[in-house]
């Protein structure tokens, strides 16, 4: 009874924090699913903006919430597919650059299309129309979907595309189709995050989805580990929660945060999730270090150097 009550009051005290974590987890999932397939796309943030305006304006117009969300998903899936087709030639940093430009362009459009988006004033007074439970269930659903994509044939196929696209093609994998698929999932997850943010916090600012959000989302995925959706979830929780708890070091928090990023990038490319997986693997005595989710023959030979955990040669 007492325990229940204390859980209840803890929840009430932290509800906003939990909501933020759930929304950012969806966004981080979007980045993670792309990165895991070897698509360095940050387009999710642009779709976060598109999703928040679409869902927010539709609900404000009197649409039923579920219909507005479905319409958002349908619209962004279509736009995401279009963008994937347009950007089909680009890889790696060039793709990252193009998607960042896309995100910021969406921001500029949002700021200037005053008739639709309210410009710098934004959209206010959207009725609160989703509950924390809905978002939680969506995050669970997205997590399930992503864990399915990490398993079995499709998981191995996506990983093969990341490790060596040409080799995957030579094994008659239609890499273009899988890449478009992952890209669209990535965009829709970003749009859902934006939609929930608008429907929960009742207002949208044109500056919500800017360069800072791009950096935050990418950081979450990298620090948590882009090898798995669990890494993205850990990243979303840590990077939303720690800054609030470390108010004692106040203005120097960002320095700790930056140092953590340099550390993870330099020493733990698999992120915290990768570290944990290496650790459990070592403890369980599995010496082969073979990742079960690997397609045979996609090993990348990494002479004389440490490879990221996922790219380690099976021995």
């Amino acid at each position, binding site marked *: 009874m007492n325990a229940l009550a204390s859980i209840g009051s803890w929840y009430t005290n932290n509800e906003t924090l939990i909501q933020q974590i759930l929304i950012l987890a969806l966004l981080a999932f979007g980045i993670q699913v792309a990165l895991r397939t070897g698509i360095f796309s940050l387009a999710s943030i642009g779709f976060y903006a598109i999703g928040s305006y679409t869902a927010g304006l539709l609900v404000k117009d009197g649409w039923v919430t579920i219909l507005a969300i479905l319409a958002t998903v349908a619209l962004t899936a279509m736009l995401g597919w279009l963008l994937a087709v347009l*950007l089909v030639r680009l890889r790696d940093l060039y793709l990252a650059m193009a998607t*960042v430009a896309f995100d910021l362009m969406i921001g500029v459009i949002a700021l200037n299309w005053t008739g639709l988006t309210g410009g710098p004033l934004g959209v206010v007074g959207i009725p609160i129309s989703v509950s924390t439970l809905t978002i939680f269930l969506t995050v669970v659903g997205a997590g399930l979907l992503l864990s399915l994509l990490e398993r079995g044939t499709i998981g191995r196929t996506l990983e093969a595309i990341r490790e060596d696209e040409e080799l995957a093609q030579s094994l008659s994998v239609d890499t273009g189709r899988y890449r478009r698929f992952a890209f669209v999932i990535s965009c829709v997850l970003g749009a859902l995050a934006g939609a929930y943010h608008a429907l929960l916090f009742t207002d949208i600012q044109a500056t919500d989805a800017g360069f800072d959000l791009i950096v935050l989302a990418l950081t979450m995925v990298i620090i948590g580990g882009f090898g798995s959706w669990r890494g993205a979830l850990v990243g979303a929780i840590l990077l939303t929660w720690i800054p609030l708890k470390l108010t004692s070091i106040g*203005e120097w928090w960002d320095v700790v945060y*930056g140092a953590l990023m*340099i550390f993870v990038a*330099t020493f733990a490319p698999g992120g915290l999730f990768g570290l944990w997986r290496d650790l459990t693997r070592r403890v369980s005595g599995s010496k082969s270090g073979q990742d079960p989710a690997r397609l045979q023959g996609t090993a990348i030979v*990494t002479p004389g150097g440490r490879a990221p955990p996922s790219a380690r040669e099976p021995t």
Partner: protein
Amino acid sequence: MQQLVNAIVFGSILTLFSLGLSLAWGTLDVLNLAHGAVFVFAGFLTYELTKDGTLSFVPTLIISMIGAGAVTVALELIAFRRIRNNFRVKRQAELSTLVASIGAATIINQFISNETDNTTFGPSQSAFHIHQYKVGSVGITNIQIIIVAAAVVVAIGLDQWVRRSRHGRAVRAVAYDPATSGLLGVNVNLLAAVTMFVAGALAGLAGVLLAINLGSEDVSVGQDYLLTAFAILIVGGVGSVRGAIAAAYLIAIAETAVIAYGPSQWSDGVAFALILLVLLIRPQGLFARRRFERV
């Protein structure tokens, strides 16, 4: 006419800023997102050095450039070198480098914000007296003349250095194939450190000149310039010195024209639209001759 002068001054600062970024990306595959923060850091150093009004312009400029270069070299030694040597998978190395540089940018920006109490800061007038010259109706200040001259000197110097000098040839060899150039006796680590120092010092030069020209700035300036520099690299072709110079002036003229004559609230969009357009139509950049091959 006045707008053209503004565009050329703006383009000159962009040239100085983006040449360093282009050098690091083109030769070492380091997309250094801390470049903008280093740029502001140099402006901050100038502010600190000129506060008591004893130091004059030239020593301030040199110390700030060395400071900016040193910060970049520190980043190379702490993070970039380890990443380059440890992760042989190129994509992983690029991603890790990007993240490490975001971390570094966060640290530098927070340091500057804390030291300046989150207010704008600018170099003291005592170090450099801004004087305006009038030619007909067109005005240009002495610092603006220095900016344009510096850009011309640096652009020609860097172009010749990369093309002709022994060092420059080694830099291009490393860009082409680091492992083989290592075997052929190029000290890749040393060369990378020198390249990063030059890149940082160029950001420093641009940072000091901009700080004096603007009068006051804060850390957000670094991010604005970084985003515009992305467009310059993409339009000019990554690693191409001449492409970067041409693209810097092109974008400066386009943005100035939009601000002066067009829908000025869309000026931020010019750079992003150019990035998208060029990547869609001609991913190797408008001025690059090299075939686009990133598989």
